[in-house]
């Protein structure tokens, strides 16, 4: 997030797009609701599904899945043609405006209305509300990023914020909600194939030299590595022989489970370090028992860049060990001494090598409770709002972005759009929440959400078991008939191993971010005797 969670209550307008906030990020959802209830903030929800935030919204735009760029270009077209842009901000703090304008001019609301399946007047109204607010914030999540146009979607949101001068000030900003407790931190720490800590590129010889010295090695590779989906492809091509997986369950979280099963079966040696024998761990050659969050010291970095402490409350069960101990032990057996790997000590090393974490230490966290990066020195208070006086690259850059349809659109054979997501009571691949009795009692099993219109056409009734099939596989799941999904769209949460949504999803990637298109796939629903000839994917 460019701004902080607390900041949301200062916004006059919030655009929530591609985020079912009250279920995926309930506490951010709570702050958004409060902004509406207490401060009369105008909430615009752009989302194909009817989500709880729609009840609080000034306006709900139900656009077709995968048409975000068109919608945003349409809004920006209105802002430009009605003279609602922040000209001073554009003049002083941005570049690339003219090229951007040329593209946006090609998206008049009437054209966009057809692409998105919404009313042109609704696009105008949203544009006026957003641009008319003194402080307008954008909030998004995986509904924006998990597309083959994920990067384009994000760039469009950045364009909207630049166009209306909504960066570098309170109650505004471009605010991605990170889905996991420490996904922000894992990125900050360089658990990515192309960067070291603090997003410094592995391709930069100077950066490599810094790390070579600090880590006492002669050579660090400069070629960016493989992303998670690419790794699995490389396994199938015989290029990657060994996978080491710490605390992840790709079998359920990644697109196209069949493909992933093939990779896990094919890889010569699989190591999984986890707290449970996950669906993925069942394929492992070695399984290492790890300590859970409650059994270790450390830090997590949340979605608004807040570094906060994790503290040990109980002992790990049996012979389970902290991940840091396991990694250091393995390094030692490979001839490398990692030294003292207690959490506070490791943070010292991180701070010494990472300018944005340079001022963060356990002592300061103990005193202050939290610090937001960038925190470049031990006397720096942290940075709740990014880009206040200037952008990291100097000027804010407008990016001309054209609308491209999703990789797989519905056709005669697979006439429905499948979109996936989370439910409030369950979490990600369900490894934790599905083992918690009261939570599992509240939502014990999966459902495919079908609009009543489609259900009638298909002859499906509530609770009926149906097959949902895509070009990649089929699953068996009971139907929930609800107007919360529009006609032509079905929704399946991905928490359930026995009917895994990701058996159906499309592994097509965004060309830049390499993120798979989990939010749009073409599927069909099969019922009755036709189901008998089908084979179904489950995580077992």
């Amino acid at each position: 997030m460019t701004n902080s969670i607390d900041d949301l209550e200062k916004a006059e307008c919030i655009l929530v797009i591609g985020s079912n906030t009250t279920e995926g990020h309930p506490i951010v959802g709570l702050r958004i609701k409060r902004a509406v209830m207490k401060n009369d903030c105008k909430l615009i929800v752009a989302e194909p599904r009817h989500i709880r935030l729609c009840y609080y919204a000034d306006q709900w735009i139900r656009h077709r899945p995968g048409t975000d760029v068109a919608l945003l270009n349409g809004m920006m077209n209105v802002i430009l043609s009605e003279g609602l842009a922040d000209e001073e901000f554009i003049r002083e703090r941005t570049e690339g405006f003219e090229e951007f304008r040329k593209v946006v001019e090609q998206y008049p609301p009437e054209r966009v209305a057809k692409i998105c399946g919404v009313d042109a007047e609704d696009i105008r109204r949203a544009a006026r509300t957003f641009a008319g607010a003194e402080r307008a914030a954008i909030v998004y999540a995986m509904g924006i990023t998990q597309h083959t146009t994920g990067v384009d979607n994000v760039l469009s949101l950045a364009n909207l914020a630049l166009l209306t001068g909504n960066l570098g000030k309170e109650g505004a900003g471009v605010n991605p909600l990170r889905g996991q407790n420490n996904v922000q931190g894992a990125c900050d720490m360089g658990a990515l194939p192309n960067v070291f800590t603090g997003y410094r590129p592995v391709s930069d010889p100077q950066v490599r030299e810094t790390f070579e010295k600090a880590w006492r090695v002669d050579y660090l590779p400069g070629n960016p590595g493989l992303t998670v989906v690419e790794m699995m492809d490389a396994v199938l091509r015989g290029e990657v022989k060994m996978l080491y997986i710490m605390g992840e369950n790709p079998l359920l979280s990644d697109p196209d489970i069949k493909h992933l099963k093939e990779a896990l079966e094919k890889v010569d040696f699989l190591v999984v370090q986890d707290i449970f024998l996950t669906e993925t761990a069942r394929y492992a050659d070695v399984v290492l028992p790890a300590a859970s969050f409650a059994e270790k010291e450390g830090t997590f970095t949340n979605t608004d860049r807040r570094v906060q402490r994790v503290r040990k409350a109980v002992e790990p069960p049996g012979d389970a060990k902290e991940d840091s101990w396991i990694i250091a032990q393995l390094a030692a057996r490979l001839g490398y001494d990692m030294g003292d790997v207690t959490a506070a000590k490791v943070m010292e090393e991180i701070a010494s090598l990472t300018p944005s974490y340079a001022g963060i230490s356990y002592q300061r966290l103990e005193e202050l409770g939290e610090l937001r990066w960038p925190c470049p020195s031990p006397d720096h208070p942290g940075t709740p709002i990014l880009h206040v006086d200037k952008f990291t690259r100097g000027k804010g850059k407008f990016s001309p972005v054209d609308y491209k349809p999703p990789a797989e659109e519905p056709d005669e054979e697979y006439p429905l759009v499948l979109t996936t997501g989370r439910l409030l009571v369950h979490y990600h691949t369900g490894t934790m929440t599905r083992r918690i009795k009261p939570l599992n009692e509240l939502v014990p099993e999966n459902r495919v959400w079908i609009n009543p219109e489609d259900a009638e056409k298909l002859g499906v009734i509530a609770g009926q078991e149906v097959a949902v099939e895509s070009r990649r596989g089929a699953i068996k799941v009971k139907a929930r008939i609800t107007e919360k999904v529009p006609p032509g769209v079905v929704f399946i949460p991905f928490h359930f191993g026995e009917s895994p949504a990701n058996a159906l999803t499309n592994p097509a990637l965004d060309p830049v971010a390499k993120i798979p298109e989990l939010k749009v796939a073409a599927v069909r629903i099969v019922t009755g005797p036709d189901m008998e000839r089908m084979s179904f994917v489950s995580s077992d």
Partner: protein
Amino acid sequence: MEQVRLSIDGVDVVTTSDRTILEAAREAGIRIPSLCYDRRMEPYGACRICIVEVEGARGLLPSCATRVTDGMVVRTNTEELRRIRRTIIELLLSDHPKDCMTCESAGNCELQDLAYEYGVKDTRFAGEQHHYEVLADNPLIERDYDKCVLCGRCIRICREVQGVGVYDFVNRGFEAVPGTPYNRPLTETPCEFCGQCVSTCPTGAIISIPSKGKGRPWQVKKVRTTCPYCGCGCQIDLHVRDGEIVEVSSPVMVGPGQGNLCVKGRYGYAFVHHPERLTTPLLRKDGELVPVTWEEALGAIANRIHKVLDEKGPDGMAFLSSARCTNEENYLLQKLARAVVGTNNVDHCARL
């Protein structure tokens, strides 16, 4: 907002004009007792426990709902105030079960604390008492309205903070009680099971079922940590008794949630002690995963890494780090991949 100066119990207090007397007093370290007050919500002024004397004011004023003004002279603990508070407590106890011995909230009950502080052992007002049915219509939240003091905190937090509004007062007069629409079970209302009502209830009227009987406040150690679920980063206190997490709460006005949690944050801790937790390294032998020592497991991995390095070079290996692990562990894993093995094939599920 202006600066104001006032006197509370003879102490000179400087604060700002947006503060209430209760807030100004607490900031100055002067405790005024309260029952219907919770910092997460707007003042309500229902219980009258926090009444104070203000010089020149007509009658006694609820300090939670009265803003400070310059030159105000406030007294919070006079004999008259104590007498009135004692009467209010007696009235509350006249329709309250005296089962503190087994009540889930003993030691964490604002009514019990008041009775203790004001020495109210019994009530002069013997009269009719309610005997409601205990409502356990869902796996998480139990309601026993015999213990309700009608402070409205559950109603207000659900409406004002959670924005849901599952509860409201039903019936009137002596029969008034918080309830759901048509007294439906919580599972049939829009309830999100966040447990904010549990966290604010001053007595044992609304409690968490999973922590029932698991430990008194003085038997548990609270450990402040960060919630392990989504990226909000809520601060939580794990209540630990004899090595077991028995409850989760959130410190009020601290961190992103400011004391509020969601259903996963508040009730999603039992996985830590689940019998299926992995407790020993496993190595595949003859197709089966069998328990081995750390020495054997780590040795097998190291041997295999050497073999891959010989045959394929460093890029024959790939590492998946974890958005669930700490910063320090992620740092170490990418260091292992880059510095020890020599590959940039390291990623995690940021994209999933």
